[in-house]
């Protein structure tokens, strides 16, 4: 069967997305669902800021507030930031290395659906007896004491979506190791591909400890185990270790791809090769490596003893060095360039001072004795929002504008983009800068209210106003997206005019097979090299035009993930006396999952071939068919 065959209708369109194994469509799925959860998390953030707008406010009750902060953190990290970055990794990385797809297209789809069902499961807690309320860190003693099923939604939901992320990580690693086009040596890979590579390695090694911790939590709460039950010999500090052994690398899993996006942007919009490419690559690897050795700096106040605290303090400080290397190399990239202040570039330019501010407060907190004051105060809230919003979210917004044309073939409005940027950027600093001082003035984090006698009123008010600005910025972005897609003005291969890497050498959006002929890579910034040498086609080819092998779509990933989703409900209600059907649901769910796994493994799926003739035909039509139109 040729998938170039014409299919029509809305149903076929939906079915196509449900069964797709095409990395570009999966990217769009990640973008939409990540974007949706970003809005949900943003709404929760607004509620937090409304509650804290003035002393003694009663907009939210104490219990509800804890649910909202927990879901805000969990949603933003696991269901918004990570999938949005995975969207760009999926959309761009295979194109950057000249591959026709990822190594495991089926698993790519499975990874998405696991994340999706995990996220849905977690958020269903709102409608099924209450959301988790022990903070996104879910410290064990509080989590075990939490009533209702909120915490169970948290542990089971994150377990499922964590499997999805792990699968995505392995997939990207293998793709980069095995599927680079001829000539694409490691040291010619675009920096975004490099950061994808390192972030995936971090996912690979960081998610298992989280999964184990979550399993312990599930066992303790739902199957009467005693890992964290102090009276039964358990120890709650184990959770803290497992969580942060995951949690610290997680921060780098988020920030490294954002670094990658900014690296691309600085080079493109300065029209200049990245300064110190080698140093940037090694700094990325070093950051990833150190990321695993510093987890206990989240636990300075736990009472691990001065030796452990001193060692982890020093290890943490060292991370500032490779991060500094990156900052200076970016500065030197734009130095001597020809800077064009497009929306992606303005985000990148704004990122530098924002992230440096977040970085230096990070070093301050690495000083263990000082951290005794800063830990769990609003200072830390300010710090991590500076790195995550000032780094990751700015990176995601920049990436959205930069890669929108490559993903959708249309260009977001620059004018509205600027409006979004200014609202968001000013709002961001207004919200979080002042929070450093709130922390120093003694305000602990995660408080649902504060007294008028504490002296924190004014700064909290300012912070809330800032949040409103950010919300306006995001709304303008939504308008921008809608208007752009309604106008539907199509763009060419290299809409920014200064693309340097392979993805800009092919149509926007690319045909579903990406490259009719595998390119031959002749250096770093290969498209730029070809352009400068006057090559009209934008690349040289490593093979003659021939038949192309592509994988078949499949609905199995969705069914498999759905099985996990069902099983999670069974586990959730396992101990409830009123729900004797829980065990049956658990078995049915696992049956669906393992059954579809068996079907997948027993049924041969060899993919299909696009013939040379079809490729020539497609090229005549503009070469950007996605297999539907």
């Amino acid at each position, binding site marked *: 069967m040729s998938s170039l065959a014409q299919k029509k209708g809305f149903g076929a369109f939906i079915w196509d997305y449900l069964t797709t194994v095409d990395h570009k469509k999966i990217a769009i799925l990640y973008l939409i669902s990540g974007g949706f959860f970003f809005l949900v998390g943003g709404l929760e953030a607004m509620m937090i800021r409304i509650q804290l707008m003035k002393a003694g406010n009663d907009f939210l009750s104490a219990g509800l507030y804890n649910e909202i902060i927990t879901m805000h953190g969990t949603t933003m990290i696991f269901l918004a930031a990570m999938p949005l970055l995975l969207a760009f990794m999926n959309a761009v990385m295979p194109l950057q290395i000249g591959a026709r797809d990822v190594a495991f297209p089926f698993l790519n789809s499975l990874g998405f659906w696991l994340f999706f069902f995990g996220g849905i499961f977690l958020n269903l807690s709102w409608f099924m007896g209450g959301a988790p309320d022990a903070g996104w860190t879910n410290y064990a003693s509080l989590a075990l004491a939490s009533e209702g099923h909120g915490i169970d939604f948290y542990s089971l939901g994150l377990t499922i979506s964590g499997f999805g992320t792990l699968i995505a990580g392995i997939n990207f690693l293998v793709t980069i190791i095995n599927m680079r086009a001829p000539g694409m040596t490691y040291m010619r890979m675009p920096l975004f591909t490099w950061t994808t590579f390192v972030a995936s390695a971090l996912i690979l090694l960081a998610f298992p400890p989280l999964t184990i911790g979550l399993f312990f939590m599930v066992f303790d709460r739902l199957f009467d*185990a005693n890992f964290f039950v102090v009276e039964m010999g358990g120890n709650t500090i*184990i959770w803290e270790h497992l969580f942060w052994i995951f949690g610290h690398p997680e921060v780098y899993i988020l920030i490294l791809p954002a670094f990658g996006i900014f690296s691309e942007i600085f080079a493109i919009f300065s029209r200049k090769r990245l300064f110190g490419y080698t140093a940037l690559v090694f700094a990325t690897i070093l950051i990833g490596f150190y990321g695993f050795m510093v987890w206990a700096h989240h636990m300075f106040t736990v009472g691990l003893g001065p030796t452990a605290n001193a060692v982890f303090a020093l290890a943490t400080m060292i991370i500032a060095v490779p991060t500094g290397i990156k900052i200076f190399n970016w500065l030197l990239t734009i130095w001597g360039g020809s800077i064009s202040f497009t929306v992606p570039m303005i985000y990148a330019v704004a990122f530098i001072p924002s992230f440096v501010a977040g970085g230096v407060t990070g070093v301050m907190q690495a000083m263990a004795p000082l951290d005794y004051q800063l830990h769990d105060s609003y200072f830390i809230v300010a710090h991590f929002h500076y790195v995550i919003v000032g780094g990751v979210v700015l990176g995601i917004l920049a990436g959205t504008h930069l890669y929108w044309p490559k993903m959708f073939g249309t260009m977001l409005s620059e004018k509205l983009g600027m409006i979004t940027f200014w609202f968001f950027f000013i709002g961001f600093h207004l919200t979080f800068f002042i929070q450093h001082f709130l922390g120093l003035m003694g305000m602990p984090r995660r408080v649902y209210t504060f007294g008028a006698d504490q002296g924190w009123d004014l700064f909290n008010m300012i912070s809330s106003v800032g949040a409103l600005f950010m919300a306006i910025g995001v709304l303008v972005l939504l308008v921008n997206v809608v208007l752009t897609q309604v106008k539907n003005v199509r763009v060419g291969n290299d809409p920014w005019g200064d693309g340097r890497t392979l993805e800009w050498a092919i149509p926007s959006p690319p045909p579903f097979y990406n490259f009719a002929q595998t390119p031959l890579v002749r250096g770093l910034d290969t498209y730029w090299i070809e352009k400068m040498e006057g090559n009209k086609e934008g690349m040289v080819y490593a093979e003659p035009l021939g038949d192309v092998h592509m994988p078949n779509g499949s609905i199995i990933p969705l069914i498999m993930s759905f099985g996990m989703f069902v099983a999670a409900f069974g586990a959730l209600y396992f101990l409830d006396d009123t729900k004797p059907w829980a065990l049956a649901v658990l078995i049915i769910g696992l049956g669906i999952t393992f059954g579809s796994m068996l079907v997948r493994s027993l049924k041969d799926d060899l993919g299909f071939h696009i013939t040379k003739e079809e490729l020539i035909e497609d090229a005549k039509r503009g070469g950007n068919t996605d297999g539907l139109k």
Partner: protein
Amino acid sequence: MDLNKRYTAQSWPDHPETATLEGKNKFVGFWLLLAAETVTFASLFATYLALKDRGPDASEFTAAGLFELPLVFAMTMILLTSSLTSVYAMHHMKNHNFKAMQAWLGITVLLGLTFLGLEIYEFNHYVHLGFGFTTSAFSSAFFTLVGTHGAHVLFGLSWFIALMVRNSKRGLNMYNAPKFYLAALYWHFIDVVWVFIFTVVYLMGVIG
């Protein structure tokens, strides 16, 4: 890839598991998965060591009092032997000798089932002594660590059986060779984990 292509011992490649791009991808991907599995078990081991012998004040169960080495030593030998028989199977896979491969895999599965049976007997024995999953922090950590390994054994056996049944009629080709290879690799990994469990849980438990 052509499933109908017939291979002989001569035309069969030296490394069938990595002869195709799909095979290569699976090979690298599986090693990475094993890296993740290693971290998983490392977390379980660390937790076990932290909670070893910990229980409520009245708990009388300790590793030294509970574990008995002879049975576990027998289990270890059986699993190690099954690793060896899976090596033979892979040797025949590389020589394109399908029947011999199936035979050795069959022996591997039998040994694995014996191991699993003994493990179930062992767990059952502990439960009868009053040492169940919910008895103490120690018991939860023990059953989770060893039980997770047991679940891996079960999955490995199911994988072997599914492959053997599915391919019993059509023999080896470039599509299923990587699958056999990876199942065997997985089996070795399980075996290595058991060696650590034997050392850390049982030997150090009884002696240390």
